[in-house]
């Protein structure tokens, strides 16, 4: 019945839905100004032409939008007013934007409330650390988005924690999407077609996380000829190839390695102490079964490895020391999708996928007669089946994910020998191995209606079921978004959405470790439920500029935190006992001024926000409200991209953010427990102080040259140009007796700050062919 309804409703589809259809079918991406009326209804012929150009012509006829195909991009711009007179669709849109469209396109697109699209082109322009173009790092320059730990891992969307983001790679969730503790993400720009960030007004097709959705779509490979690029940078080398195989098949393959991976066999031979490396391999093959159907096989594998060996030898037998430390983590993903894109009628995608997030650690310390070792191997496997369909204005579908959390397997040994005789051999079973399953099933439906020529309502409902060994939770998640286009200059929107989350991961406030296991919900720890209200507006009255503002309030139920503080290795039972469920809230205002045309483009984003937690049962922070790890009062991002010449771009970004909250003990006190009285550093409340604000300026110059076949590009950059001393790494320590002064007496706590990321230059060379 739904299919029939969708078929008859085809006449009410929007231009945007048609664009999505063409993106899927031809592997192109659309680049356009946010002001273009892509949300307007499309009532033309079905998009069933064989050629892309034919379908583009049908889609945009009489829409006031003209198109141009450039490579894999379709560039849209408004038809100049004199040409568009009388042909504008339905609404009295005055396409002033035509004045501002030139060969340069805006760096950001706000296509619908709560969503920001980041074209792959923008990712390529951003000045970045070590010259590594990065999707997630670029997102951190947007209002409402920030790193959880500055310079390093985790993305926080509107005060959410890193585990509260749904990071999708072609619709399949990825876990731990970082290399180098978050310096670089696992997404290679070469294989990325488009990135969408949802901060609010989440469509019903997304679920499973509480705070943000990062939807990364990879490119299918072009159907015309073999193309590729080779990039050599300070840190990594990358190779990308895509093209056709026969008439019906296209492929795309991207690989990246850290230079040091090549050195590992040699270093091992030389018995050298330390090495770290990672690699990524990204493969996509699409095969057209006919005019309407295609199969797509995607696979990804990325692994990080760190090894450190130290050995000191002494003449006395048994008196030397050996330190061995090895870490590893990574993702493996394989997905097979059936794409049904008939041109008219319902279109859909059904995917069967398997993902594995694995981490491991092996530590060994031998010091004279004492040896200690620790091994840990938590992992998470997902088996996913999802199906998403679009029929006219309706989208519907469902998904089932079997999460299998491999918790524990953490074991430590301490052994002591005296004169060759073992006097102690202790095995610490820190966390016995166990497999904890979580069944997550969801169905959803969503649709958009034009209530009037100026008002559009998008509504959806998602029902998510979480089934664990001891309990089943059903969470209905309504999604509502209302948009009012007052005229071509003013738009306003409001939304309410509910999201839920069944997999949780807690991190230290100091850093996020890839070894931290995920924990499914249980009777004791129900799913996180986030209700978000947002209201905003945009003004496009100044040619070449756009201004937007959005205010939001997000209430969170069942957030989890450690009752006292973070612990690295605990069993699942201990995790439950050492954590508590409480409430959280985030609220704030985001302002974005964007210059969308001219030689200078860019944006200025400002976020005023607050994020906190409270545990009314008193088990955390004595029941007193405290700032969340992600709480930052102010954040400013200024991004500017200036076309020095036709071939040369200069990009700069400046970031300022209030300091992160920190818990500072101010007293030494006795605290008693069953095992006696311990003398401890006593902090009265969580987050009773703050780190100083962070700020930095990053720049980048890119020089492109079109060659007879392909192009070449040199990129030079500097991260933290003026060397701001931000606390990138560090640890707490206290003043010793010998170094005590009147101002800093013995026992005074300080943070040993390491400002690692200063004046970091970068250079990379890319040859596309």
């Amino acid at each position, binding site marked *: 019945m739904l299919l029939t309804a969708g078929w008859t409703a085809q006449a009410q589809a929007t231009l945007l839905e048609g664009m999505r259809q063409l993106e899927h079918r031809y592997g192109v991406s659309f680049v356009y100004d946010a002001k273009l009326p892509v949300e307007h209804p499309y009532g033309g012929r079905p998009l069933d032409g064989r050629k892309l150009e034919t379908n583009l012509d049908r889609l945009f006829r009489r829409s006031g939008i003209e198109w141009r195909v450039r490579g894999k991009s379709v560039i849209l711009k408004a038809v100049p007013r004199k040409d568009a007179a009388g042909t504008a669709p339905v609404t009295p849109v005055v396409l002033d934007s035509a004045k501002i469209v030139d060969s340069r396109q805006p760096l950001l697109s706000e296509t619908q409330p709560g969503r920001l699209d980041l074209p792959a082109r923008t990712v390529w322009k951003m000045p970045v650390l070590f010259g590594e173009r990065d999707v997630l790092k670029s997102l951190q320059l947007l209002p409402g988005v920030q790193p959880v730990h500055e310079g390093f891992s985790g993305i926080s969307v509107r005060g959410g924690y890193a585990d509260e983001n749904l990071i999708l790679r072609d619709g399949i969730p990825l876990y731990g999407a970082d290399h180098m503790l978050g310096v670089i993400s696992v997404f290679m720009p070469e294989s990325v077609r488009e990135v969408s960030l949802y901060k609010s007004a989440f469509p019903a097709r997304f679920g499973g996380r509480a705070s943000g959705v990062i939807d990364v779509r990879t490119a299918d490979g072009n159907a015309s000829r073999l193309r590729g690029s080779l990039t050599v940078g300070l840190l990594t080398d990358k190779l990308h190839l895509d093209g056709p195989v026969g008439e019906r098949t296209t492929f795309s393959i991207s690989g990246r390695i850290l230079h040091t991976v090549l050195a590992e066999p040699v270093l091992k031979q030389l018995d050298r102490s330390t090495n770290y490396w990672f690699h990524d391999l990204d493969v996509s093959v699409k095969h057209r079964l006919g005019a309407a159907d295609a199969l797509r096989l995607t696979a990804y594998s990325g692994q990080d490895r760190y090894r450190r060996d130290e050995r000191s030898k002494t003449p006395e037998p048994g008196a030397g020391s050996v330190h061995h430390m090895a870490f590893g983590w990574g993702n493996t993903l394989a997905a097979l999708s059936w794409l049904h894109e008939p041109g008219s009628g319902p279109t859909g995608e059904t995917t069967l996928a398997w993902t594995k997030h694995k981490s491991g650690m092996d*530590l060994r*310390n031998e010091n004279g007669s*004492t040896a*200690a070792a620790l091994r840990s191997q938590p992992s998470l496997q997902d088996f996913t089946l999802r199906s998403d369909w679009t029929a006219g204005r309706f989208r519907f579908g469902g998904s089932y994910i079997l999460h299998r959390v491999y918790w524990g397997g953490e074991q*430590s040994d*301490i052994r002591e020998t005296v004169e060759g005789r073992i006097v*102690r*051999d*202790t*095995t*610490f*079973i*820190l*966390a*016995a191995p166990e497999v904890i399953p979580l069944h997550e099933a969801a169905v959803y439906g969503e649709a958009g209606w034009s209530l009037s020529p100026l008002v559009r309502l998008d509504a959806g409902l998602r029902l998510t079921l979480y089934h664990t060994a001891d309990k089943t939770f059903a969470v209905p998640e309504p999604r509502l978004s209302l948009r009012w286009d007052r005229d071509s200059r003013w738009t306003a929107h409001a939304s309410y959405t509910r999201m839920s989350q069944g997999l949780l991961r807690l991190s*230290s406030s*100091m850093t996020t470790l890839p070894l931290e296991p995920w924990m499914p919900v249980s009777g004791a720890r129900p799913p996180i439920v986030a209700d978000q209200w947002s209201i905003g507006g945009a003004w496009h009255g100044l040619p070449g500029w756009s201004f937007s503002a959005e205010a939001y309030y997000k209430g969170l139920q069942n957030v989890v935190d450690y*009752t*006292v*503080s*973070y612990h690295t290795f605990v*069993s699942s*039972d*201990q995790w439950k006992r*050492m954590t508590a469920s409480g409430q959280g809230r985030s609220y704030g205002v985001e302002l974005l001024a964007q210059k969308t045309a001219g030689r200078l483009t860019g944006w200025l984003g400002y976020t005023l926000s607050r994020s906190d937690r409270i545990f009314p049962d008193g088990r955390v922070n004595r029941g007193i409200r405290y700032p969340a790890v992600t709480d930052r009062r102010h954040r400013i991002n200024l991004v500017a991209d200036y076309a020095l010449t036709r071939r040369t771009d200069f990009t700069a970004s400046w970031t300022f953010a209030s300091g992160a909250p920190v*818990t*500072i*003990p*101010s*007293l*030494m*006190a006795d*605290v*008693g427990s*069953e*095992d006696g*009285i311990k003398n401890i550093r*006593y*902090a009265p409340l*969580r987050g009773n*102080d703050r*780190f*100083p604000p962070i700020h930095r300026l990053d720049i980048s110059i890119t020089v492109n040259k079109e060659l007879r076949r392909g192009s070449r590009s040199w990129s030079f950059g500097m991260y933290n140009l003026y*060397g701001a*001393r931000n*606390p990138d790494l*560090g*640890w707490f320590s206290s003043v010793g007796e010998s170094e005590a002064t009147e101002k*800093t*007496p*013995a*026992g*005074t706590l*300080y*943070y040993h*700050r*390491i400002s*690692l990321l*200063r*004046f970091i230059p970068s250079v990379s060379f890319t040859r596309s062919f």
Partner: protein
Amino acid sequence: MNHRLVILISLLVSVSCEDRLWFSTPKEEKVLNVNGLLDTSDSLHTLRVAYATSEKAIPAEDVSVLCHVNGREVPVDAGERKGDFLFRSELRPSDRVSLRVVSPGTEAFTESVVPRQAEIGTVQVTRDGEVFVCRIEVRDIPEEDSFYRLDIRGRQRAYGRQSGLEYKEERTLAVDPSGDPVLGKSRVSDRYSYQHLEYDGVIFSDEAFRDGRISFTVRVGLNQLDEPYFWYSLEGSPVDYHGVSSLVVKLSSIPREDYELTEYFRFQWDDLYDNLGFLSYFEEEGVYPNNVENAIGNVFVRSSVSQAVDILEMDYTSDDPGHPSITWKVPSE
């Protein structure tokens, strides 16, 4: 050119820097610091009172302590150690214990209700080589979330048949719960020696047997009973002595905060962290539970019940003065 190169290299080498970041968190001069662990198994209770300062906790001597049990005042005396305050009371489940610490300018207060008592069912002890295997049945306190601590103590007694002298010694033994499916999920096993186990008792919740009963299996090293200290005092005495060694199973119901704090501390002070110290880089400062108003610290009350099982008898006779004859009271596995 060379000059520029040197400047550039020098700049790059010196890019990262380390320094100390000081915080301006307001410091309190001194704050009352009150801790106590009261137990129904003992009528003498100790309260430790100190002042927490930025450098260390200093025993408080200028304070007075008032104690009320079910509204009745109980006399409190200063202990031998500075900052210790002692009172005697036979506490029973559901008793309400109020403590008020009065110091110049401030007053701290805490009130606790003695938890309900759990029950020990049957206790079976067998001998498996060098260890005792103890199967202990525990009955949960119904209709509430309960937290427990299980201790096993070694009790050794001896008396002279001719002299009439009696000796008694009791001490807590290290137990190994690693073979038990509930207790052993995250515990320590020591294949060679039980002497090095840092913690004696086992703490657990009733999550696995809510409102029901469960049998735990723990192991206790035989070597812990090898040399009772009083044996040394018997040297030179008449040899006609009879001795009995027993295992005393003690089950205490404890407050949730006590349970959580104990578990937290056991990780914090773990051998593992000593030996793999880098893990502490990821640790963060915590905010500890606190159940004393206007002070730092906790006064916890636990409700305990015990059951003893004789495990062996020893007889010293003049026939073989150095070697007692041993009669096992528990079967071998």
